[in-house]
Each structure stands twice: as C-alpha cells, then as structure tokens.
C-alpha cells in the first residue's frame, strides 16, 4: 500500500491541472474547512459558499504559493479571511467567561485539594472498542464549545497546527490562544469524564 501523497505533492500536480490531485486535497480538508467556516457565518449554506470560495482561492493562488508556510496554514488563512468577509462582520461574541474554572469548585476541598480521588483513563481508552465509540461524544462536545475555543481546539488538536500557525490564522495573540485552548480542552476533558462516569454506572 502506497503512503498518502503529501500536500506538497498534490499541489505540484494541481499546478499541472490534475483534477484527481485536486479532489484528493478536497477530500482531505473539506470537512475541516466546513467546520471552521461554520463558526464565522450564520448557517451551513453560507459556510459552504465560503469553503467553495476558498477552494477557488487555492486553485487561483496555487502558482503563487511558495511553501514558506505549510499548505494547511495557508489554506486555513484563506478560509478565515473569506469567512470574515462573508460572515457577520461583527463577530458574535462568545459567552466567554475568563474566570470559568477548568474544574467545578465543588470538586475540591476547602484547602484546594481534590475532594475525591481521580484515576487515569488509559486502561479504558486503550481498549479499541471503547476508544472507537468515543468519537461521536467528543465531536459533539467539540461542536458545543464556544466558537473561538472551537476554532483553536480544532486547528490545534484535530488538524495539528502549531500554536504560532493558529495565532497567524485566527489573528489572536499567543496568550489569548492559550487561554482559549485551555478552556476548550478542559471542557472536552469534562465531557469525556461525564461520558465515562455515565457508562460506568
């Protein structure tokens, strides 16, 4: 079995007008683009237009892309720029409470120590069958994150962009990126924890 072609290899073929390379790239990223676009615009239909517009930008700009940034970063930068233009210019504000705790206060005793013992999940998650069934709950929890947290967690943890690239794509400061990442990841952890607790009963 051949290894999947890299983005750069696909781009080279796209420059030559290779349709199958283009479709391979679309298959690789379209779902992610759609999800990120959706956090900027009012509905799925507009998000689809933004995504399509992004792919036009890729095809038109492929000759000018010099590979200084990764393709992925370039791609999401195009998307976010178009989404901002198409979206409500004034972005809907997240209900973002900077003091929201990562863990509810009642989980700690008055000294600030854990009131109940905590166990790692490894043994549960390493079980292939269990792990496979985590996806849907995790994706649902991700979809429920406030938009900016969702964007950051999606680009960092699903797409694997570096923090620098995420700051670049979303136009946020490093500190802000880290706060959003922290809130988002903490919520996802809490979602998995309650899922696990519910299953354990």
């Amino acid at each position, binding site marked *: 079995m051949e290894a999947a072609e890299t983005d750069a290899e696909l781009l080279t073929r796209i420059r030559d*007008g290779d*349709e199958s390379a283009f479709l391979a790239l679309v298959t690789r990223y379209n*779902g992610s683009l759609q999800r990120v676009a959706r956090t900027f615009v009012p509905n799925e239909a507009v998000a689809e237009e933004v995504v399509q517009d992004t792919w036009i930008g890729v095809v038109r700009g492929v000759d000018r892309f010099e590979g200084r940034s990764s393709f992925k970063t370039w791609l999401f930068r195009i998307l976010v720029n178009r989404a901002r233009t198409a979206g409500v210019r004034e972005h809907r504000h997240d209900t973002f409470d900077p003091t929201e705790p990562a863990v509810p206060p009642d989980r700690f005793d008055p000294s*600030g120590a854990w009131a109940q*013992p*905590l166990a790692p999940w490894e043994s549960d998650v390493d079980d292939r069958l269990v792990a496979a069934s985590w996806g849907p709950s995790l994706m649902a929890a991700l979809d429920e994150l406030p938009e900016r947290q969702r964007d950051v967690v999606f680009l960092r943890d699903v797409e694997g962009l570096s923090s620098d690239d995420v700051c670049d794509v979303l136009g946020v400061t490093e500190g802000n990126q880290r706060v959003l990442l922290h809130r988002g*990841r903490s919520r996802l952890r809490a979602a998995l924890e309650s899922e696990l607790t519910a299953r354990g009963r």
Partner: protein
Amino acid sequence: MMLTMRREELACRQMVELVTDYLEGALPRRDRKRFDRHLRGCPNCTAYLEQMRTTIAETGRLTPDDLTPEARDEFTRLFRSWTGTGGSDDSGSGGDAPG
C-alpha cells in the same frame, strides 16, 4: 538556589488551571518546578494530567466528515470550470490512473 524566595506549594485547584501552560511549555521555569514537585506528590493531579493528555490524543483522532459523492461531483465540475479544462485539449481527461 534561593529557598527564601520559594513560594508556597500549588494547590490542586491551581494545578488544573496551569495544565495547558505546562503542556505548552509556557510556564516560567520556577512555576514549572513547582508544578513538577506537586505532581510527584499528588496521584490525583497526575491522573488529571493524564486525562488531559488522553483528551488531546483522542481529539487528534477525530476525522471530520467525508466528502459525499454529490460534493465530489460538484467539485470536479467546479475544478474544470475554474481551470478552463474539460474541453478537448490534448491532455485528455485523466493522465493519472493509480493502481
């Protein structure tokens, strides 16, 4: 080592707020040491850190929705119109036939 400057130990409640900075390598050296010291003596926070790592790893395994056949057709059509191909130029319709 200036032990007089050593601040008090971190509480578990503080640990859970520092965990991302810790994983991102963004904690100042001194705080990182306090974090590590707490971890060594606290199985609960060690478990919490592991849970966060598991969460991150599981999130990394998520795969966004696949392209529907309809969308695939639509993108094929669009690509042809954007690139002005799809006519009868000499490159043919598919020079690429992976085995």
